[in-house]
């Protein structure tokens, strides 16, 4: 596009808007002359009418429906790595060129199919069901999304790393040499002066599971903890990585992308669902929900599972009976004009969702807008009698008196002298309908709002019911104050609450990554609380925890893939200071012994948070709690994903004194592993083994089976195996003489020992565990084996498994996994798969956790607080509205993700990400549609184009995520002296995370802004200011 056209568009915009149809005029005229003189000027097409379109993969007889397969192609079922949804797909492969032709959905798969097929349906019948025969294929589709379609370009990308690389220049200089896999292993195991920069500790020296790494703080664990493992997410192979890390090498330290993805959401959800170990969450049962409220998430724009939610939303609003409201700072794809009678978008100021949630809760509690009968059920006995799948702790009494030794805990029978403390019968206590204290398991109902004095073994104390405490928090501000804070009118909040309450148990509030704000934990808990108040958990049309997965990597019916001889249990404090109370550290005890106040701690200790990559890296470099010596990253890219990290860490990563050894396992060079010392080329999508599950909202149990449907392209090991994450950890463990790998590493149910020398030694045995769990799958037929393209796999099955396992495992791969039948989805008005732990209006674990800055207990119910820093001070105490008038946020693209910029078919549709600016803000700052603007935050500055309109909340600035890359093909690298120039188009656009900044209340240079309770990276509501960039125009 030339300058003239750009100026024309701008002129048009300034003139008030005409569509731009400028280009393309001269091209055809030019070709006309050429064509008439020379005949067809281009390359002759394969077919006169169908051009170069692909040959069909099969044909269907229009009368009989009989299938004839195209013998030049095969169809195979595996997983898509296009995003973290991990849909099951059907891959069309050219048998002659071994090339992937196109991808669509697996009809047996719940994440891809409208209604997934029972797996006893033969594969040829399933293929017929995808065809136009009797319109079957469009009455029940199985699809792949745009990214899922485009992602196959990864396989053949010029940017792939195909050889083992070792850096030859300084870290990050982009200078590499290829080395053999065996040399790479030698060097990282034994260490030495590997880069002529001085001695580097090898992994053999670091792997010490006995010696404490810090004698003064023995709780930090052994020296082996000085290896940090990073991973993007579980693409079906994490179990093998963790087997190496935790149970063979013995390091405690592993982190994945969660802390800069949706952790604040997950923890808020975990607080409600009484699961602060795995942070269970729910998604609406969209097929039956009558009213949905999406806050900080937008099915069909993005989300997990993307396609499943998008499809269900589309169907429910067009042919079903769903109404919904999308609350989001930005207009998104879920707000459908064509279905405008069924949905509405309400904009909100970024990072203020707690205010909205507490406003809604307040209205519901003050206007009988809650499921009183359900909430009054105090225990399992009462819930069972009422036919409910579970109960909440709304009626349970909390000891709410700081002077009481059990402050923050539930009042239990032992406090009343009626049970032994900690015993199984030490139930919480409620006030029953007669007004008396009674065990939650004995009472049939409890009173919802209680505040009274109770005599306990430790004296008279104040107790309040959980719901009473929630109401106290909700009433801390008026709905008008909440409205004023979040930018949604009070009348709208009240109407929304009323509407939500009216649909009761068929109302669902859905929330996700939009909660990554400075108050995200309580925001997520608050939004989830709406579901609890409505009683919609576990209810058909309410919110669903999902069906879970078949776990093949545990101790299964055929093989024990969990335990093994010599297995290590990792010990010690996580580098991220999580899951460990500060009060148990030696440091704390020293302060107390010295008569000093232990608070604030040197840096946050987050008892409730999982190990978080947002703290791991900077902590490991800063040395608190301890230094790391080596790092292995698998597809991990925190520098792109964590707001403010690049600016803070880049110079430190460049210096090998901070971390001696960094090995990356990846198919591509990204913004983080560009600083690696070695890169191990990994298999990419369709070349990998693994087993993946589904996220919540998928109401039936399922596991996707992945196998290399095409041969990996990268280098091979000396033994002839593809170099990959699997072979890397297997061979690394063997070199280090670690347990759990090599000969006799796997124990079968038959008592015999089996080897783990190749990837399939592990994954095919996991497949046997899945295929033979419960009622074993039937043997695959010869026709199924042929039609599902698994013939190349059969030899490996026969060479690895016992004879009786081959048939069922072939069945598993011929369907692309194991899937519970659709009929198991519901049980009357309840969901077929339910969550049975007591749901938390008040979470005892939260309410008794001490904040390591203030030394005070956390609030144990949802609450309102403004976005804040570690010391509790508010964002605006440091960065005023006057100086930083706008709040920036990122939102997921419906096309691009954080690692898809290399896919040219996505770039051609959306090459760039102009930022969303409200027209009133544009007027205020003199910005016109299409102007280049500088966006400045306390931590960085980027230049972007302004897309001016009403598509964003006033006062907010929206940045679509996935652009502004420096690597993944954008950067230039030199390999063996040969320059591999970057493509500048992959670097187009801006990344909101370049606007992230340091928490000003923490030690300089050690922390980006993280949400206090969870440690989640804050990316929603970053303070910014904008100005027009004049010199570019």
């Amino acid at each position, binding site marked *: *596009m030339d300058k003239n056209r*750009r100026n024309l*568009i701008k002129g048009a*915009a300034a003139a008030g808007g005409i*569509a*731009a*149809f400028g280009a*393309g005029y001269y091209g*055809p005229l030019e070709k*006309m002359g050429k*064509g*008439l003189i020379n*005949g*067809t000027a281009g390359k*002759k*097409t394969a077919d*006169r009418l*169908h*051009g*170069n*379109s692909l040959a069909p*993969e099969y*044909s269907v007889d229009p009368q009989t429906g009989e299938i004839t397969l195209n013998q030049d192609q095969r169809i195979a079922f595996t997983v898509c790595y296009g995003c973290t949804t991990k849909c099951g797909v059907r891959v069309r492969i050219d048998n002659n060129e071994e090339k992937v032709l*196109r991808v669509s959905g697996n009809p047996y798969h719940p994440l891809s199919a409208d209604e997934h097929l029972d797996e006893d349906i033969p594969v040829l019948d399933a293929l017929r069901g*995808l065809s*136009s025969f009797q*319109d079957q*294929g*469009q009455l029940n*589709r199985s*699809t*792949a999304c*745009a990214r899922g*379609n485009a992602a196959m370009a990864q396989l053949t990308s010029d940017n792939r790393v195909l050889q083992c690389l070792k850096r030859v220049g300084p870290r990050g200089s982009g200078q590499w040499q290829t080395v053999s896999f065996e040399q790479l292993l030698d060097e990282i195991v034994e260490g030495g002066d590997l880069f002529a920069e001085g001695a580097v500790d090898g992994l053999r020296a670091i792997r010490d599971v006995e010696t404490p790494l810090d004698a003064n703080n023995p709780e930090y664990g052994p020296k082996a903890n000085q290896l940090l493992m990073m991973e993007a997410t579980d693409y079906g192979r994490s179990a093998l990585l963790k087997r190496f890390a935790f149970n063979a090498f013995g390091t405690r330290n592993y982190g994945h992308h969660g802390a800069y993805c949706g952790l604040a959401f997950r923890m808020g959800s975990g607080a409600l669902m009484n699961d602060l170990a795995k942070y269970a969450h729910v998604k609406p049962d969209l097929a039956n929900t009558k009213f949905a409220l999406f806050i900080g998430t937008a099915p*069909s724009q993005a989300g997990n599972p993307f396609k499943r939610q*998008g*499809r269900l939303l*589309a*169907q429910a*609003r*067009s042919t079903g009976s769903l109404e919904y409201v999308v609350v989001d700072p930005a207009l998104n*794809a879920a*707000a*459908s004009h*064509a279905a405008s009678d069924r949905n509405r978008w309400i904009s909100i100021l970024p990072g203020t969702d707690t205010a909205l949630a507490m406003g809604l809760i307040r209205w519901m509690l003050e206007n009988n807008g809650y499921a009183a009968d359900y909430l009054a059920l105090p225990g399992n006995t009462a819930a069972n009698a009422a036919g409910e799948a579970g109960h909440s702790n709304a009626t349970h009494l909390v000891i709410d008196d700081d002077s009481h030794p059990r402050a923050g805990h539930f009042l239990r029978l032992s406090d009343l002298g009626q049970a032994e403390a900690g015993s199984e019968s030490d139930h919480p206590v409620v006030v029953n309908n007669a007004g008396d204290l009674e065990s939650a398991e004995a009472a049939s109902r409890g009173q919802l709002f209680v505040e009274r004095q109770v005599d306990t073994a430790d004296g008279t104390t104040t107790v309040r019911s959980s719901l009473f405490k929630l109401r106290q928090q909700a009433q801390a501000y008026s709905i008008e104050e909440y409205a004023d804070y979040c930018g949604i009118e009070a009348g709208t909040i009240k109407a929304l609450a009323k509407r939500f309450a009216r649909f009761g148990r068929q109302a669902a509030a859905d929330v996700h990554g939009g909660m990554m704000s400075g108050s995200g934990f309580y925001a997520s808990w608050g939004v989830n609380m709406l579901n609890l108040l409505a009683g919609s958990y576990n209810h058909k049309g309410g919110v669903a925890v999902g069906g879970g997965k078949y776990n093949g990597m545990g101790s299964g019916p055929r093989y024990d893939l969990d335990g093994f001889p010599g297995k290590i249990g990792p010990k010690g404090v996580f580098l991220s200071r999580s899951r460990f109370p500060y009060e148990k550290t030696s440091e704390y005890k020293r302060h107390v012994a010295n008569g000093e106040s232990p608070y604030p701690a040197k840096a946050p200790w987050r008892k409730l948070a999982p190990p978080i990559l947002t703290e791991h890296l900077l902590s490991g470099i800063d040395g608190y709690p301890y230094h790391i010596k080596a790092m292995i990253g698998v597809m991990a890219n925190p520098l792109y994903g964590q707001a403010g990290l690049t600016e803070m860490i880049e110079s430190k990563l460049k210096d090998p004194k901070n971390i001696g050894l960094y090995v990356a396992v990846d198919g591509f060079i990204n913004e983080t592993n560009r600083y690696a010392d070695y890169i191990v080329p990994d298999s990419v999508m369709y070349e990998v083994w693994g087993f993946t599950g589904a996220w919540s909202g998928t109401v039936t149990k399922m596991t996707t089976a992945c196998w290399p449907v095409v041969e990996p392209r990268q280098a091979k090991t000396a033994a002839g195996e593809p170099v990959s994450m699997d072979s890397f950890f297997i061979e690394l463990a063997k070199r280090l003489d670690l347990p759990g790998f090599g000969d006799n590493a796997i124990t079968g149910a038959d008592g015999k020992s089996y080897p783990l020398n190749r990837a399939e030694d592990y994954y095919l045995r996991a497949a046997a565990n899945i295929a033979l769990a419960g009622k074993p799958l039937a043997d695959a037929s010869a026709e199924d084996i042929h039609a599902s393209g698994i013939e190349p796999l059969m030899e490996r099955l026969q060479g690895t498994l016992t004879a009786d396992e081959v048939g069922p495992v072939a069945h598993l791969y011929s369907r692309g996994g194991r899937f519970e039948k659709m009929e198991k989805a519901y049980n009357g008005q309840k969901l077929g798969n339910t969550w049975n732990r007591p749901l938390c209006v008040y979470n005892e674990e939260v309410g008794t956790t001490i904040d390591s800055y203030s030394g005070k207990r956390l609030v144990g119910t949802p609450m309102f607080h403004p976005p804040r820093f570690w010391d509790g001070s508010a964002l605006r105490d440091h960065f005023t509205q006057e100086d930083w008038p706008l709040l920036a946020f990122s939102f997921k693209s*419906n096309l691009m993700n954080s690692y898809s910029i290399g896919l040219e*078919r996505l770039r*051609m*549709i*959306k*090459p*760039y990400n*102009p930022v969303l600016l409200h027209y009133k803000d544009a007027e205020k700052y003199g910005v016109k*549609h299409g102007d280049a603007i500088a966006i400045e935050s306390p931590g960085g500055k980027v230049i*972007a*184009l302004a897309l001016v*309109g009403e*598509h964003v909340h006033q006062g907010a600035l929206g940045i679509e995520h996935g652009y502004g890359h420096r690597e993944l093909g954008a950067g230039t690298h030199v390999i063996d002296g040969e320059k591999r120039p970057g493509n500048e188009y992959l*670097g187009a*656009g801006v990344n909101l995370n370049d606007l992230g900044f340091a928490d000003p209340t923490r030690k300089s240079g050690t922390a980006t802004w993280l949400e206090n309770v969870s440690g989640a990276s804050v990316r929603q509501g970053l303070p910014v200011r904008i100005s027009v960039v004049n010199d570019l125009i």
Partner: protein
Amino acid sequence: MDTMRRALLGQMTKLTVGAALVPLSSIASAGINDQPPRREGDPAKRYQPPRREGDPAKRYAMLIDLRACIGCQACTVSCHIENEVPLGSFRTIVSQYEVEHEDSGDIATFMLPRLCNHCDSPPCVPVCPVQATFQREDGIVVVDNDVCVGCGYCVQACPYDARFINEHTQTADKCTFCAHRLDVGLLPACVESCVGGARIIGDIRDPNSQISQMIDEHSKELMVLKPEQGTSPHVFYLGMDDRFISRPDAKPALWDVRDPQGEEMGYEFHGH
């Protein structure tokens, strides 16, 4: 079909000029393959060469339920792969608009999938000097790549910007409803991959087909693009806002691509 045509032409009276529509992003309002304004005229009155090839018993058409379109572009990409379309050219794409509801004032997203309309009076056919482009008996408009000289007349003639000159083959290129798949009993790539289930293809002469039944059910609500052109398009839209049946008066999309320093880079792919 006559009833249908009359019903669709009837929509003309509803043509309005809406409020300013702002494209959400760079995929927005530009045509599939941007073309300049062209001569007007009633194509129905023009000579149409006789239809040939294809199954005379069938008339293929597509119905797009816009209420079910989520704008995911799965159709765009799967079509692009299936038909080996050059980068930067499109046989189909989904335009995405920010639009204000005329009554409520609510702001929402409008998704408009676009492709060849396989018109009953296709203006692209009579203008072909070598009769390379023609309509099959089953209604599918195709291009004979062996005959096409790439003159581009048909590209100019199409009121829907649905055609382009394929830079590899140097011939006119466009959606064929994936005739190579329909002919063997498979679905077009875009239909097969439609995540929301918005795209319905089928034989409108078969009263039992899904599309015929949906046409019956929704006959009063269906609209086509640019009915005033008299082309009788055979892509029917359900849930259409009539402000969009002609080219919307929209604020332009931003096609600029900028590097991190804010410098203009231009569009990476040929065709725009």
